[in-house]
């Protein structure tokens, strides 16, 4: 019953309904003078149509339960690391954030030894900072601690 197509189609339908709901604050305009809500509503309606076309005959797709999520541990770790970067990058500075990120991924997720991890992470963090910030003058945050 629950195939991938059905689930995906259903998600698309829900999303397009959400968009239409959110667009109600914007003026729609007229046929001759389209307003800011015109295009989003039109596209959301199209997406709704596509979503329905996907889910209704969705019987032939593989079952939803057959989709393997085996990598979920790694996925959550990587996504958590990225979210950490979002909050830490400008507060802790580039080098410190990247160091922590790499150590986290290499030590905790990939279970490498502490010393090689630290060496690798420090080289990458400081090396990339040097190359891109100092030499190429790409603006990279230095954070409250000056890192």
């Amino acid at each position, binding site marked *: 019953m629950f195939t991938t197509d059905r689930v995906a189609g259903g998600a698309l339908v829900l999303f397009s309904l959400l968009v239409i709901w959110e667009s109600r604050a914007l003026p729609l305009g007229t046929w001759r003078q389209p*307003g800011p809500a015109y295009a989003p509503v039109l596209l959301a309606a199209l997406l709704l149509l596509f979503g329905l076309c996907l889910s209704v005959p969705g019987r032939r797709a593989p079952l939803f339960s057959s989709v393997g999520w085996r990598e979920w541990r790694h996925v959550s770790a990587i996504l958590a690391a990225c979210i950490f970067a979002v909050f830490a990058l400008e507060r802790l500075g580039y080098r410190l954030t990247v160091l922590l990120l790499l150590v986290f991924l290499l030590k905790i997720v990939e279970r490498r030894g502490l010393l090689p991890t630290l060496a690798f992470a420090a080289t990458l963090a400081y090396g990339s900072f040097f190359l891109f910030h100092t030499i190429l003058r790409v603006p990279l945050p230095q954070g409250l601690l000056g890192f």
Partner: protein
Amino acid sequence: MIRMPECGYFRRHVCFAAVAALLVGVAAGGFAQEKYPNRPITIVAPFPPGGVADLTARPVAAAMEKVLKNPVVVVNKTGAAGAVGMSFVANSKPDGYTLLMALSSISIIPEADKLFDRQPAYTMNQLMPIALISADPTIFVVNAERPWKSVKEFVEDAKKRRGEISYSSSGVYGTLHMAMEMFSHAAGISLKHVPYAGAGPALTAILGGHVDTLASGPAVVIPHIKAGKLRPLAGWGAKRVASLPDVPTFKELGYDIEFYIWAGLFAPRGTPAPVMKVIRGAVRQAVNTSEFKSAMDKLATPIAYLDAPEFQKFWDKDAKMLADAIKRVGKVEVKEVK
């Protein structure tokens, strides 16, 4: 509490003196650190590199650096027609190390926010003016293939064909839009507005003949005027543009409007007065250096320096004019195509 066991009388006094000296040293050092500036100063340009704000900020930064003997860097923080950079500086610490090089659109964005009942990205009260650097009068140009040779001809034609003659702009509520708005209001005509995403595309549009007229800063259109592709009819300045001596101003023609695309330096409100004094002095010296003058010459932008008090007056007047124009325009969607 530090216990000082076994400290003999002599030792105790030496220790005490040493600690006292240390404390005094730290305090003195601390005060020494209070002297402004002792860190690199950042000038935020809220537009992408290559735009007017950026191109004006860089010579200013370079000249200030020489005067202050302290690094001054330009950082681009782009987005939302400048709102991102402007609100960044408005909300940053008022310690004199984060400054803003803004264009006249600084007065537009809070008004537009008010119009749309939005939480304003920043308010003009959050910023204090330091100095005005440049003020380019806008020029009114028409595509050379169109028949109008003077503003008078143009206005007559526009009155006959309401809402048919078109103009491009850098965006809704942008500076070029507002300039044209003021003119059409003063002349009692109604024009068709075709907004584009930026001054570059707006220029391309008139060159390609897709719109009839444009209000623009002089530097970018002068080459095209010389090549015969565009014809200037009038200028929004109080005086005629130096490189276009034959072009009358709107004031001369009887329309009481003035509009400049200006660039000025701002600081967050609350920056301490001594710091402001140093910055203002540095800017005053910087704009008088020969390197700065030649840099601005190359950009074909005249220097129009005004120190803080005069700049505040200028800004207030300009802001009120723009606010009136925005209120008049209202929300674009609600109006009919005139």
